[in-house]
């Protein structure tokens, strides 16, 4: 099963690599947002620049995964190759795992420009240990958003998936406090953010890059979201039959 997951990951990456513009697209947006918002406004303050970069990474982790999986999966499901793969003797697990592995690779590639911009164009700083913890945290916080994307991708047709991903991503970013620094959001956002997947993820990231404290209530909520979204994703995969007509 592990090797089959790697096979699925390898072929996902191969397909992406043959159309490199797709990769460029997912790397462009977070980098542009860094240049437009972080560098000019908080770039000169080390503490703000660091947490703002962490917020921006959280933001791009959410958006790349929501779109990559939500839209990507529903697109794949519309291809006649998908029902064929379903006749092969493997269940949901290796496909899910392979997609997740490939998605993580692409996500890290798309984060490289963000990190380079933070390192060279802002005062953001981080120790080597904290950098490694942050990298591990990125993998961890990607999981609920990957599962959210998979749940969307497997439960609705392509056009609906695009709309739902777009409708979800902005409120999630705002209510999760990604648009503002730690402790600076409007009151209602400060109250609910820790319990939203975006807010929980951002808090973990802030704790990894700065001395922002770990909030265990928020971590528990994020774990709860992860389990719930995972359940929905698997449910959606199992009930999925591809297109309704063929």
């Amino acid at each position, binding site marked *: 099963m592990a090797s089959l997951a790697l096979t699925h990951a390898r072929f996902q990456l191969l397909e992406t690599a*043959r159309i490199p513009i797709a990769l460029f697209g997912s790397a462009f947006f977070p980098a542009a947002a860094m240049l437009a918002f972080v560098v000019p406004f908080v770039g000169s303050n080390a503490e703000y620049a660091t947490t703002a970069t962490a917020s921006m990474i959280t933001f791009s982790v959410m958006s790349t995964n929501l779109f990559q999986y939500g839209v990507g999966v529903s697109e794949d499901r519309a291809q006649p190759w998908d029902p064929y793969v*379903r006749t*092969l003797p493997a269940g949901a697990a290796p496909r899910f795992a392979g997609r997740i592995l490939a998605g993580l690779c692409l996500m890290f590639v798309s984060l490289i420009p963000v990190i380079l911009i933070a390192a060279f164009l802002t005062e953001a700083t981080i120790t080597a240990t904290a950098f490694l913890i942050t990298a591990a945290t990125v993998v961890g916080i990607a999981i609920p958003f990957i599962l959210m994307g998979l749940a969307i991708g497997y439960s609705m047709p392509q056009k609906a998936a695009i709309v739902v991903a777009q409708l979800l991503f902005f409120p999630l970013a705002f209510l999760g406090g990604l648009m503002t620094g730690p402790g600076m959001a409007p009151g209602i956002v400060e109250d609910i953010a820790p319990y939203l997947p975006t807010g929980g993820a951002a808090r973990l990231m802030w704790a990894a890059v700065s001395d922002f404290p770990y909030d265990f209530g928020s971590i528990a909520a994020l774990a709860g979201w992860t389990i719930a979204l995972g359940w929905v994703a698997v449910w959606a995969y199992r009930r999925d039959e591809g297109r309704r007509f063929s």
Partner: protein
Amino acid sequence: MFLARALEVTRRYGDKLALDQVSFDVAAGELVGLLGPNGAGKSTLVNLLTGIRRPTSGRVELFGGDPRVPAHRRELGVTPQETGLPASLRVGEVVDFVSAHYDNPLPRAELLDRFGLTDLVRRQTGGLSGGEKRRVAVALAFVGRPRMVFLDEPTTGLDVQARRLLWDGIRAFSAEGGTVVLTSHYLEEIEALARRVVVIGGGRVLADDTVGAVRGLVAVRRVSLTVREPLPELAGVSDIERDGDRLHLLTGDADQLVRDLVAYGTAFEDLEVRPTSLEEAFLALTRESAAA
């Protein structure tokens, strides 16, 4: 022993009834043709048997179990739609991808050689011709050394030589004990390969018999003759095709028709009586079911 079986299976898509109480089974070693026009329900039946879809009611079994459970698909091979091959991947890569799902797949070189694909191994599937894609699609059904394959129009769009080659391959698989379910609305294909034909139309099984019997079932004969005068009113003629002076009459009772022609004193030449092709039998069957 049944390798695949549907018991009173009904499948709806919303309001549309795609399959209506269909029962169907395939025994080990059979070579069955599943015949029907597009939208008749044959792809829905195949999708249920290969675990892609679930029946609305009734039961489907594959190798004695639920086809939705991956373990029951270990000895199954299916052709993908040739238009569905991942366009950016190379032929060899697609084969490798499929192989990775099986415990004991055919070695890549052997598979490619068997289906005459060795020269295409480095080509991206998006750049292949229709016939080449078709051959890749059929080859993929055999990657996992299956005991049973579902082949969807395996030789449509192939030239005569490639078609013969593939037919020989399918016959050889069958001769070694392999079980084949062939779906097609391309009739020569089914006539050439299948011993048993299941005709599906309007979501129901219209006939399930040997190729000969399905033809005999409708017992339509084509009586061709050249006449230079108007024909008298003839009983039992279901259809008349005109080709200049040459007339082709379709009838259930050719003997009576000829006796009538003689009795009326019709001056005809070049009388020819032929059994109909499977296609004509099939058209008559679906027409009957539409009329009923």
